[in-house]
């Protein structure tokens, strides 16, 4: 190829990446400019404008995709500031999907190495490849968030996160206290609560469905009621202070962990309700509650910040 052929090919490669409306005009200008640049280089080197000189010029100019991108405003889908959060969410989400998928496949009977390979193949085609919906969904979510921030910058102004707010939300605390009282009443005697709710018209079968086992009444119920009631003085203290102090936060976390431990004991021990269907449903709900509570505590621990110097401090001279 001659030097001119190289420039023509390069210009075409850049121009076809541009919008049709500006493509030909940019190509016409770029070809003329590159021609002048090449001529100047050739005069500077004291030789003809040969293909080697043209190749060097075009390499210095840049990859056609990069050059074409420079002709247009930068397009950002995921904000650079969100890059790490995006990567973290992608990796954690895929790890969970892939692990759960692998567990499901490996729970099926595997009698030989071939069965294992078949299960792996099914995991690959049935879990790994379809799981690409997750990064796709994240791209859309982060993209919409970035677009919204650019459209309405004031709405992206920083405000303290709900979990970092120290001032007590009195209405929420009062609601929480009312919820605790109701919860304890329901826990003590669900049939009484049903009577109250239905005006004493609860069917006997329904009454039976919510009957506790004696073992539960004797073993876990006192612990559970006691732990729930301990929230009352805690929330009243927060109401009185008007804010969540560090010791109050720690007490709340300790109480949540202890409650989770008792709930786990309930799930693993014998039946809680005499009716098997009610017992299964209640334990399913308790498992979800434990998962949410532990997840929230773990998240708080991961996000915790305790400002302290990273090295020894020296007194000023």
């Amino acid at each position, binding site marked *: 190829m001659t030097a001119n052929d190289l420039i023509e090919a390069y210009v075409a490669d850049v121009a076809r990446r541009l919008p049709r409306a*500006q493509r030909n005009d*940019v190509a*016409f*200008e*770029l070809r*003329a*400019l590159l*021609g*002048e*640049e090449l001529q*100047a280089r050739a005069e500077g080197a004291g030789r003809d404008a040969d293909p080697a000189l043209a190749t060097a010029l075009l390499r*210095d*100019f*840049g990859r056609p995709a*990069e*050059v074409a991108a*420079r*002709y*247009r*405003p930068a397009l950002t889908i995921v904000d650079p500031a969100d890059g790490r959060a995006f990567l973290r969410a992608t990796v954690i989400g895929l790890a969970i999907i892939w692990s759960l998928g692998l567990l499901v496949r490996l729970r099926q009977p595997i009698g030989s190495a071939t069965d294992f390979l078949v299960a792996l193949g099914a995991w690959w085609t049935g879990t790994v490849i379809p799981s690409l919906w997750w990064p796709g969904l994240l791209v859309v979510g982060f993209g919409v968030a970035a677009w919204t921030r650019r459209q309405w910058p004031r709405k992206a102004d920083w405000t303290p996160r709900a979990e970092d707010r120290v001032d007590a939300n009195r209405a929420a605390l009062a609601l929480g206290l009312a919820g605790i009282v109701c919860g304890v009443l329901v826990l003590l005697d669900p049939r009484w609560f049903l009577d109250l709710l239905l005006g004493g018209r609860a069917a006997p079968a329904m009454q039976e469905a919510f009957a506790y086992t004696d073992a539960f009444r004797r073993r876990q119920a006192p612990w559970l009621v006691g732990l729930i009631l301990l929230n009352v003085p805690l929330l009243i203290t927060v109401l009185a202070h008007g804010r969540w102090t560090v010791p109050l936060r720690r007490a709340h976390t300790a109480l949540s962990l202890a409650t989770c431990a008792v709930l786990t004991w309930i799930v693993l021990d014998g039946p809680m309700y005499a009716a098997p269907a009610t017992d299964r449903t209640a334990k399913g709900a308790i498992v979800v509650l434990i998962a949410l509570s532990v997840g929230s505590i773990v998240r708080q621990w991961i996000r915790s910040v305790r400002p302290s110097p990273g090295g020894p401090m020296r007194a000023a001279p």
Partner: protein
Amino acid sequence: MYRMGETEAYATLEHELRRGVVVLATLSQLRTPRYGYELRQALAERGLPIEEGTLYPLLRRLEAQGLLQSEWRIEEGPPRRYYALNADGGTLLRKLTASWRGLNDAMARLLGED
């Protein structure tokens, strides 16, 4: 290893410094109409060479932002697209020049403290 890191850091930071002034330098030379190659020569002669792959697309972007006007002209040689500041570009140049002078004075004071 350390020296390599030091060189890379210098190259990156120096590139960032230069990138910050490319737009102002370009606008400053477009008070009279110029075409791409001529503009690059003018900047290089005044001590600020800008890579062609950066400068030529920049002219189109500035025009798309409504800061430059351009037209094709046939004078000596091939047809050339000439760029010049429009009213908005002129206003922006004055504002950026004032900012640059303020920064320059501040930096001179800061660096003169050594």
